């Protein structure tokens, strides 16, 4: 029970499946992870590995009526799966906030950003319209938007991508959330703006003390911001460890291959970057046994069974070959 108090978020054995015309599709199979207060958890994996779906499940934002979600999602010890819409609504935006990938489409085009921030403030508090607006200006200042007093009355289309993402972050921070879920918040931005946004998130984490779950497919971003890392592949967690161990002693062949695909900044420039042979498995045709098996260079006979996470609590990998090391 001490664990429950130490951790902000505890996800246990989360399964998400979708009923489709081609049969049931298992998008997430038995994902478990914890987030401690104030820490940054990086979640990496290719597109379709289930990073976003698992966090949308945490937020209760999977609205597809064909989705089946089982397992346990506890926030501050309170079960979120099966909680009423009203309960979820009071947590969403107030205690857990989310930043989305594309700032171009994640703001309603017909309202000013001040209006949209104020909407969130007033959804959770007793603030008057005037107070909510002042709070919006304050937040826009905090995220470093130039000229916040004027920016508050701007419409999304009048702002650049980086400025919009700052506005979205300001909105997410409006109720001082304990947990911030950032779903590839820098993917749609230029590299220089990316760096600014990462700096901003790191600074806000210090100032506001929010824990951050950072979803990305970019190992460079992970190196920049994460404390601990969760590597996902085909709907499962294949490795979890602190950042240092992931980069220096990766155990899962997939993590290893991901790191190999980053160009080195010292030494000779390689002729070709190492890529991972093959493509991620289709959810409709999952290989039996280890999902990474067909693409894995260290494959052995044992890999025809599904490997579980093994290893000491601080560093676990789901691999028969290298997991025990």
């Amino acid at each position, binding site marked *: 029970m001490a664990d429950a108090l130490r951790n902000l978020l505890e996800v246990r054995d989360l399964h998400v499946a979708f009923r489709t015309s081609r049969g049931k599709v298992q998008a997430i199979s038995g994902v478990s992870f914890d987030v401690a207060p104030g820490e940054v958890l990086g979640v990496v994996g290719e597109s379709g590995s289930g990073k976003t779906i698992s966090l949308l499940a945490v*937020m209760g*934002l999977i*609205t597809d009526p064909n989705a089946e979600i089982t397992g346990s999602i506890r926030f501050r010890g309170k079960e979120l799966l099966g909680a009423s*819409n009203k309960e979820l*609504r*009071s*947590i*969403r*935006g*107030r205690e857990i*906030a*989310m930043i*989305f990938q*594309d700032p171009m*489409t*994640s*703001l*309603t*085009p*017909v309202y*000013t950003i001040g209006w949209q921030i104020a*909407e*969130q403030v007033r*959804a*959770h508090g007793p603030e008057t319209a005037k107070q909510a607006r002042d709070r919006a200006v304050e937040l826009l200042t905090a995220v470093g938007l130039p000229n916040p007093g004027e920016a508050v009355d701007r*419409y999304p*289309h*009048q702002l650049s991508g980086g400025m919009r993402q700052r506005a*979205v972050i300001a*909105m997410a921070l409006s109720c001082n959330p304990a947990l911030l879920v950032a779903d590839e918040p820098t993917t749609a931005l230029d590299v220089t703006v990316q760096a600014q946004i990462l700096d901003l998130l790191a600074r806000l984490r210090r100032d506001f003390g929010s824990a951050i779950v950072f979803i990305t497919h970019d190992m460079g971003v992970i190196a920049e911001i994460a404390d601990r890392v969760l590597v996902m592949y085909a709907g499962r967690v294949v490795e979890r460890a602190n950042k240092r161990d992931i980069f220096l002693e990766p155990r899962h062949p997939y993590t290893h291959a991901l790191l190999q695909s980053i160009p080195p900044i010292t030494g000779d420039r390689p002729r070709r970057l190492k890529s991972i042979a093959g493509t991620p498995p289709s959810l409709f045709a999952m290989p039996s046994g280890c999902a990474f098996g067909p693409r894995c260079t260290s494959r052995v006979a044992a890999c025809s069974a599904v490997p579980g996470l093994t290893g000491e609590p601080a560093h676990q990998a789901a691999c028969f070959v290298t997991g025990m090391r």
Partner: protein
Amino acid sequence: MLLPVLKRLGDMVVAMFGISVLVFLIFFAIPGAEPASRIAGRNASPETVAAVRLSFGLDQPLPVQYLIMMKKLFITQDLTSFVNRGYKVIPAVMNAAPITLSLVAGAALIWIVFGLLIGVLAAAFKNTWIDRLLMVMSLIGISMPAFWLGAVINLFTQSRWHDYWLFSWVPPLGYKPFVESPKLWALTLVLPCFSLAVGYIGIYGRVLRANIVEAMQEDYIRTARAKGVSESRILIRHALRTSLISVVTLFGLDFGQLVGGVAVLTEIVFALQGVGKITFDGLLNLDLPVIMAAVLYSALFVVICNALVDMLYILIDPRERTDG
């Protein structure tokens, strides 16, 4: 904010000028058009044709003919029919305009209210029996021709069951000007407006439902949910609000067309001497002055409505404001 409005007003004037030139050329300059004998009407005597030629300056160059026509239409407003002797065309159109305008505005009010209601309800209860029932009802509404519905309504309210308490309030067919009796004006318009509106209610309900359902898939709806905003607020303030933009476009086109005379069948069924009816009569008699005046009048309304819609855009869609 003012500049885009002025710009649209300018566009409007240019469009009106273009249309008037085009309409003029169609009737006056196309080979074989023989405007003089057209204006004079069928079986006209040579004296009448000569009088027409003199009155419309048909022996002069085309631009002068155009100016004379425009002067008769807009400045002196003394364009007269030769088919129907002594019939002043402009006052006739001007008297018909308020009738059509009342009919169409009333219908528009009805179809906007019910179209919105049906669209929002159907989208809110997507894929439930409420949605299906509303969609089937709107399809039935769209499938009923307005003139047929009008005729059926008349059958019940004017003859068969007129004395039945439910329909005893229905006044005789025809139009009563508002200044004479506001109550009768409203009562005579209720059923015509309703029968004209039914099809549009169906169309608007379906279009709006589709737009809202599509908008609900947008990323900003997910953002709003993540903010902890209630579902009903998301539906009305976010999804409906952004969906209104395309409905306003549709409305501008429909309203302009109807005021321009497309409501002719409803006008005939309910014995309203509106613009549609006047155009229809002009066409039956091949009465060129009437046709010209009516065509330009409808064009004017289509253009005005579109300009109004453009201005409404500026109001409801902030993205329209900057391109000024």
